[in-house]
């Protein structure tokens, strides 16, 4: 029974012990779970295309939201530029690109709101009108709710940045938030394809 005073199990290897960032790993796990939820809603949408027993049909009422989509997709680019500026320590540039990202996200939401307003009040399509309405508002609404969550977080960071509380030490966290935003944009590509191209 020899005494081992220090609870180290063997000689510490001198080489470094790099492990992946837990925020990034955690966000990727969240993205996998979220993708599965979206997948189920997409399957429900595709399965039910053309099964509505009453109108209005997608072809009658849906217009391609081109401007909206350009705004949302380009926000992926601006958030990347913001991250790059933060890495360099250029805070004013960071704030500029970050604010633009949030603005583009907000434009997308306003666009969705206008589209829904037209669908509800002009075309008379609500979530309970027919099967198309149910699947359409669920899928697009699920995506829009993710945009809202992203916008809340973007605005929080923007507020902190304007107050001078964001610095290079937060790079990793900003990057995790950036991953989420890229995910939301990527989902829109799928939703756009399914709803406005295949489903019309």
């Amino acid at each position, binding site marked *: *029974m*020899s*005494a*081992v*005073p*220090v*609870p*180290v*199990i*063997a*000689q*510490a*290897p001198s080489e470094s*012990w790099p*492990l*992946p*960032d*837990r*925020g990034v*790993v*955690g966000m990727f*796990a*969240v993205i*996998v*779970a*979220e993708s*599965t*939820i979206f*997948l*189920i*809603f997409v399957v*429900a949408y595709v*399965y*039910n295309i053309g*099964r*509505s*027993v*009453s109108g209005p049909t997608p072809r009658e009422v849906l217009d391609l939201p081109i401007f909206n989509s350009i705004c949302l997709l380009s926000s992926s680019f601006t958030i990347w530029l913001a991250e790059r500026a933060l890495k360099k320590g250029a805070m004013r540039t960071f704030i500029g690109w970050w604010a633009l990202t949030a603005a583009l996200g907000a434009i997308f939401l306003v666009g969705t709101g206008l589209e829904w307003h037209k669908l509800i009040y002009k075309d008379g399509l609500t*979530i*309970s009108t*027919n*099967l198309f309405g*149910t*699947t359409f508002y*669920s899928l697009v609404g699920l995506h829009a709710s993710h945009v809202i969550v992203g916008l809340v977080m973007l605005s929080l960071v923007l507020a902190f940045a304007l107050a001078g509380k964001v610095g290079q030490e937060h790079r990793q966290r900003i990057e995790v938030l950036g991953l989420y935003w890229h995910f939301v944009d990527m989902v829109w590509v799928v939703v756009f394809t399914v709803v406005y191209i295949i489903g019309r």
Partner: protein
Amino acid sequence: MADSTLPIDGPVGGTIGVPHEVEDVPTWGERLHEWVTTVDHKKLGLMYIGYGLLFLLVGGIEALLIRLQLFFPNNHFISSVVFNRLFTMHGTTMVFMVGMTIIIGFANYLVPLMIGARDMAFPRLNAFSFWMTALGGLFLYYSFIGGVGLQGAGSAPDFTWWGYAPLTERAFSRGHTADYWALALIVQGFGTIGAAVNIIATTFSMRCKGMTLFRMPLLVWLNLVVAGMILTTISPLTAAQIMLTIDRYLGGHFFDSQAGGSPLLWFHFFWIFGHPEVYVLVLPAFAIANEVIPTFSRKAIFGYPAMVAASVGIGFISVSVWAHHMFTVGMKPASNAFFVLSTELVGVPTAIKIFNWIATMWGGRIRFTTSMLFATAFVAQFLLAGLTGIMLSVAPWNWQLHGTYFVVAHFHYVLVGAIVFCIFSGLYYWYPKMTGKLLDERLGKWHFWLFLIGFHMTFDLMHIPGLLGMPRWIYTYQPGHGWEIWNQLVGVGAVFQAVAMLVFVYNLVHSYLKGTDAGPDPWDAWTLEWFTPSPPPAYNFATEPVVRSRRPLWDIKHPEDPDWKYE
């Protein structure tokens, strides 16, 4: 056994150099506050396990009432309406509130300790996950009180635990029972997904120095696989429940066939959750056996890489077998063939595991503690459960037996014979670490043998009325079908199990108050959690351990012949 076998003087694992001051004994209020606000993975793990055990008793009582009603033909002890509620609540409770909570509790408690970390990657998310789970249980059982709703029909969900549409739609489930049921599973699902995210981030990002992925204990590996599966398994259920809620509250038509919707879609969504869910529950049970069997066989686990590969393999195959729950729905021959073959394919990795456990025991110096007894029984019973699984995977056989008690017997063989046995094995094994006291072995043996006899009486014999054509879900039956004697024997077996549970609960309390001190390492085991005092301090390890092999404690105890020379 109670003494430490570690060649270390003084506190094991070291304590941080703050001298222990004489503390005031905390009041009950302070203790409650501490447990409610804790973010410590060990406390949360214990709360998960405790919450699960509580619901195990609740679900068990529901099962006893079911057996009591079926004891005699033409019995009217329980009405058909209440009977439907009982089996629905029994199923939902046992899967979500017992199985999921206890296995996540074990993962929570053990994963950080086994990889030499001080806590999970996201401690506050961990607390959030637990409280969401707790809320889910409350929602589920609240429907007994608040589920009536304005229409005054039903006071608990009564549409089976898979809630096939359109039974759950407004037209057939009036009142709010289906709402509470859906809400409970959504809320608990968020908790479970949070826990899975946490386990994945912990295993990838919190390992101590030298703990490479292929030096992790198998328990950690299997829980990593399970966490990955949870991400793709629970999410479909959450999505489907959201759709159901849209149907019920916003007048949607997802599962409303009159508006073109499809109840069949619910079947698919539910089982694409429901079948991987079986592996989500059973892999953590394997994980426990993977730790218990080597320790009590005094041998390193046989075929570590094969075990890892088999677990990952099960994870992938399990997402392609869901429709074997739906043969009786009537699918195309090609779909039937696909799901028959994919289901039988799962038999390969699981058989690899069974061979590895037997090979681990083979030639070992086996110590039959209560924990090892449960693990040994598990191996045998899981084999049998797998065999009836292969029988049911054959579509024509399945058509014949799907709606009968044969299926009930099969899946209870998996859920009780494998999962519950492993949970007991794990509790006897880690209770000393969690509380610092050994569970009483004499009471443990009583618990084991009573439970074993009860289990086999109930679930071996339950296959027979199934083969004789007794349907599931019936609340009573006519005499003269030859079912009476089997139902009575099954009922007697249930009583044995209930008595065993009482012995177990008594043992838990008795040993906590009057048990022998366990010491840090009562089983002479090899993984890092035994390197801490029992119970471990909040920070787990005073200094971060460094490991060089799969059995770090073996290396300490046997410096002349360490494992790392051979790996």
